């Protein structure tokens, strides 16, 4: 890997994981980790934090958790990016629980609007995410929208139900089934 690629936050698939070196206290790896995952963590924090100031605090807390748990990353159990996203999401949800408030999302609420947005950075692809993307693409459109509104844009179940004029129970079911599909649990509930 070249130094130039280290400085590029959009590193390509196949890049070596950084977290084992981070866990060993490698300063260069830590700095590359901040550059590689900073945009992802910051973007997630912006969507799931009530204020920009809180998002900044959240980013700092998330990265501390990344340093703390770096040694637990296991390359055989998933991608590094998903590992980081799990830690980020967990931290953000914990903070939200603590605040007992729901945020107003600052990004466009319509998932389709993303395609028309500025050519901002996009999450790099890796096998695990690509598989999820394929499964997502195979789901019925209403289910895709529910998943995007919930997981990507941070809307509450109630907000999604109101926005899509859909019963709350249906929102929950569509979310659950979508996640189960990604887990590899084939759902054939109608036949059971």
């Amino acid at each position, binding site marked *: 890997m070249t130094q130039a690629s280290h400085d590029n936050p959009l590193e390509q698939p196949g890049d070596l994981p950084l977290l084992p070196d981070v866990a060993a206290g490698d300063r260069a790896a830590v700095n590359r980790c901040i550059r590689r995952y900073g945009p992802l963590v910051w973007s997630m924090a912006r969507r799931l934090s009530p204020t920009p100031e809180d998002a*900044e605090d959240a*980013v700092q807390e998330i990265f501390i958790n990344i340093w703390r748990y770096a040694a637990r990353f296991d390359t055989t159990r998933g991608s590094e990016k998903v590992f980081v996203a799990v830690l980020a999401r967990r931290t953000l949800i914990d903070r939200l629980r603590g605040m007992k408030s729901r945020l107003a999302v600052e990004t466009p609420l319509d998932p389709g609007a993303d395609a028309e947005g500025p050519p901002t950075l996009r999450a790099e692809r890796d096998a695990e995410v690509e598989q*999820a993307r394929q499964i997502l693409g195979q789901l019925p459109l209403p289910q895709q929208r529910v*998943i995007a509104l919930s997981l990507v844009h941070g809307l509450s179940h109630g907000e999604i139900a109101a926005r899509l004029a859909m019963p709350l129970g249906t929102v929950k079911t569509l979310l659950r089934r*979508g996640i189960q599909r*990604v887990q590899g649990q084939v759902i054939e509930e109608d036949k*059971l």
Partner: protein
Amino acid sequence: MSPERMLRNRLTELAVDQLLGELSAEDAAEYRGLRERFPDFDDAALEQSVAALQLAGDAPLEPLPERLRVRVATDATAWFASQWRAADPPAADPVAPPVAADWVRYGGWFAAAACLVLALTVWLQRPSPPAARIAALPEPPAAGVAAEPARTGSPSGPAPLPAATPARTTDAETAPDEADPEAARAQLLASRRPVVHRAWRAGGDPTGLQVSGDVIWDPRTQTGYMRFVGLPRNDPNVAQYQLWIFDGTRDDRFPVDGGVFNISGVRDGEVVAIHARLRVAVPLMFAVTIERPGGVVVSDRSRIAALANTT
């Protein structure tokens, strides 16, 4: 659908709610019950799938602001340095590997963090206002605080101040499960969890000239205990001790309030529980100041009795 399948689906639904921060108080009990019924349920895999789906949504990513990147990098410096210190091997262990490798690995972190702490220390000990400078002179005993450590049973110890009240440990907000901080401290040390463990040193105020002891802090549970030797007892009606925790993720002008406490002077080695008002992500330094009864929201730091650096 079989009842078993229905229950598993319900568990998944509740687990998703939990992951998304939407689990209600009523559902939480049901969730716990179903988790006990299905111990093989894989929460971690579910969480991983949620994260993968979220990333698959291809949301636009915003570049990390440069000033925030610098803050994150600064946090990393402090955090890794504190980890290195926390992982210090016992020096007396003849079979322990030499620490040179750790120096190579963490030396840079330590050096960088030392610069941070130096800046904090200089700032803490900045020129005080006139009243504070007077209070720092060694002659007059600090108001409300004995000039020398009180040791019951010590024939050479100073006479206790008349108004001194034997205080238990901390302020009125002491949690019930911390009623015995000495036992809680021993339990935390015995747990072998990674904790920050540092020694007290004098902070500049004559009150703390003979202070020693230590402070331990568990970052995971956000709990900690201070053990003081040589810190004089105080009269809570006149002055109280107050702990401040400097967090590497926060502006050092605003350390986290660690609680107001009293020293009874009944015996040395008194243990006091820490009551941090906010989460402390990277404890860089602990400082004990002497404040008016009830403590203050912002200390003028004119009377620092004890300090403990973590780097």
